[in-house]
């Protein structure tokens, strides 16, 4: 990997994002409440210390993702991110289909977090299970109201929240590990649960890092291009440390049979380590993760919907703004869809399915990112602030590796390594088919309607200026008519 930062002119903004904030944003986007469940899914395939080994290998693989997205971000440092890379690499329609599918992961994560936090609060308060859904509605209601009011977490608040969650989880995990001492009862055996169990464990481990690359959407406010590159490399390191400690503590202090059916493994670890204090400690951290998820998730997804509507790819009603300059219909729709998904999860108890779907979509996106890098290497001859050494072979390797990991998670049963399941793949296929059908059938109609509306209601306002060519064309004609 090489760095050519000094070749890019830097623009100084009055308010810009530095490395600490960008790293916090990246780690905060990745580390949601669903990550605690993600560790349980890894444990299904890699018990005991093997889970930490899988997370380590996942971290090594993520370095490749960091490098790929660093180069793409340096090439197009914009909030439009993957939409633009894809558009330039494979065309606008494919870009739109993939981006719509990608954005559904945001809804899944918001819904999952709402459900998990609701379930955790209900558990600690010893309420009947049906009240979990009331908590979900309350949480989403608060998030909706705050978003419609235009309330946003300041960068420094987001930074503090992220580092508190990461540090708090690490400290409790270390305390829990003191209970275990040296009694690690499982040898490291990545393929101990079947021929493919190691591959599936690594694929689920990737889910813990998922969404860290969304920090590229803040590229336009970064102090220098190097800030985003640093964040892309440092954030996975932080997640690796925290997730490894948590996995080690969880696997040795709480039995897998207890974790298997629980939506709040972090609370079980908290109780096992420090009793009620530990449980409340982990509940507080779980609630804090919601601040990042709801703030970041709603912001990214609603602004994407707004831009898509303004571009003519979604009904223009989604671009309507309230008096706080918030796209209110986009935010409200996101909340309602998240509430519905959370209700389905609540009713079916299939929360680990969200982990499989999220992990598979992320692997798919990483494979697509690799393809983008490969194609843009040959198509765009422009200086990059960051350039991946041996980019082409590594991009080919990435495309193959992440495709394999996509298959490994899309057909995995997140609870049981002995079974395959088509449920995750079915969900992704349905989402992908809906996106593609929409892009192929509805978007052209919307764009034709928008063009017709503009032509009918709004003539060009800019005055036409005569150029020398115009004058030269007119003059002989004028002379001839005389």
């Amino acid at each position: 990997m090489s760095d050519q930062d000094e070749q890019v002119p830097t623009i100084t903004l009055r308010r810009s994002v530095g490395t600490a904030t960008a790293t916090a944003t990246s780690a905060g986007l990745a580390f949601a409440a669903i990550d605690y469940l993600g560790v349980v899914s890894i444990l299904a395939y890699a018990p005991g210390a093997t889970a930490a080994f899988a997370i380590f290998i996942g971290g090594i693989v993520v370095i490749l993702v960091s490098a790929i997205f660093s180069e793409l971000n340096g090439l197009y440092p914009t909030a439009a991110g993957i939409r633009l890379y894809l558009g330039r690499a494979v065309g606008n329609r494919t870009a739109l289909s993939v981006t719509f599918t990608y954005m559904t992961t945001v809804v899944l994560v918001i819904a999952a977090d709402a459900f998990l936090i609701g379930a955790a609060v209900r558990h600690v308060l010893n309420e009947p299970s049906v009240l979990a859904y009331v908590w979900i509605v309350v949480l989403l209601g608060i998030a909706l109201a705050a978003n419609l009011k235009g309330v946003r977490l300041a960068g420094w608040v987001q930074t503090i929240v992220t580092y508190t969650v990461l540090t708090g989880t690490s400290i409790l995990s270390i305390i829990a590990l003191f209970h275990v001492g040296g009694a690690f009862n499982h040898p490291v055996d990545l393929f101990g649960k079947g021929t493919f169990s190691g591959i599936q464990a690594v694929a689920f481990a990737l889910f813990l890092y998922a969404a860290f690359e969304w920090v590229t959407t803040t590229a336009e406010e970064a102090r220098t291009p190097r800030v985003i590159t640093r964040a892309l490399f440092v954030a996975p390191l932080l997640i690796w440390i925290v997730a490894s400690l948590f996995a080690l503590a969880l696997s040795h202090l709480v039995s897998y049979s207890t974790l298997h059916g629980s939506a709040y493994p972090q609370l079980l670890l908290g109780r096992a380590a420090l009793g009620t204090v530990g449980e409340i400690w982990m509940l507080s951290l779980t609630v804090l993760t919601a601040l990042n998820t709801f703030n970041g998730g709603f912001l990214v997804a609603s602004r994407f919907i707004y831009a898509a509507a303004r571009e003519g790819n979604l009904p223009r009603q989604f671009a309507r703004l309230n008096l706080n300059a918030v796209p209110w219909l986009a935010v409200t729709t996101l909340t309602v869809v998240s509430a519905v998904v959370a209700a389905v999860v609540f009713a079916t108890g299939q929360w680990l399915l969200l982990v499989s779907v999220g992990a598979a979509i992320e692997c798919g996106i990483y494979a697509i990112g690799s393809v983008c890098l490969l194609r843009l290497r040959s198509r765009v001859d422009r200086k990059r602030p960051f350039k991946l050494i041996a980019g082409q072979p590594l991009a080919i390797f990435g495309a193959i590796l992440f495709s394999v990991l996509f298959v490994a998670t899309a057909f995995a049963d997140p609870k049981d390594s002995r079974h395959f399941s088509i449920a995750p793949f079915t969900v992704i296929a349905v989402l992908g088919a809906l996106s593609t059908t929409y892009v192929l059938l509805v978007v052209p109609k919307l764009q034709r309607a928008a063009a017709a509306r503009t032509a009918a209601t709004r003539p060009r306002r800019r005055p036409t200026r005569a150029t020398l060519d115009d004058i030269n064309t007119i003059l002989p004609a004028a002379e001839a008519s005389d």
Partner: protein
Amino acid sequence: MADWDEICEALADYTISCNENVRLRKMQRDWSRMLHFICSDTGVTFSMDVDKGEIMSTLEGLVGLPDIVVSTTSETFCDMFWGDLNPVQKYLRGEITVKGSQEDVMRLDAISYVIWPES
């Protein structure tokens, strides 16, 4: 390529449209920013001072420390300030580049959207 006079003409119309739009002024009541604009083809630069949603002044050159920096061709700037193009389409194609927070980028587009909803 559009010259500075053409850009000024477009900016004059844009300023009136912005400042006289009651809904826009209400929406942008908490938005005070210094904007820098850079014409990538001609090298012309200019600055816009917005205070509580009202465009206070537009000056040639880069004045003060910016909150947002917008770069594109002089023609695109002219069309944008006349409301003859949709800035989001150009932005998503990478033809308009912006430095600034996502929120400010959206606020900037919101101005065009509120003044010319059909653009």
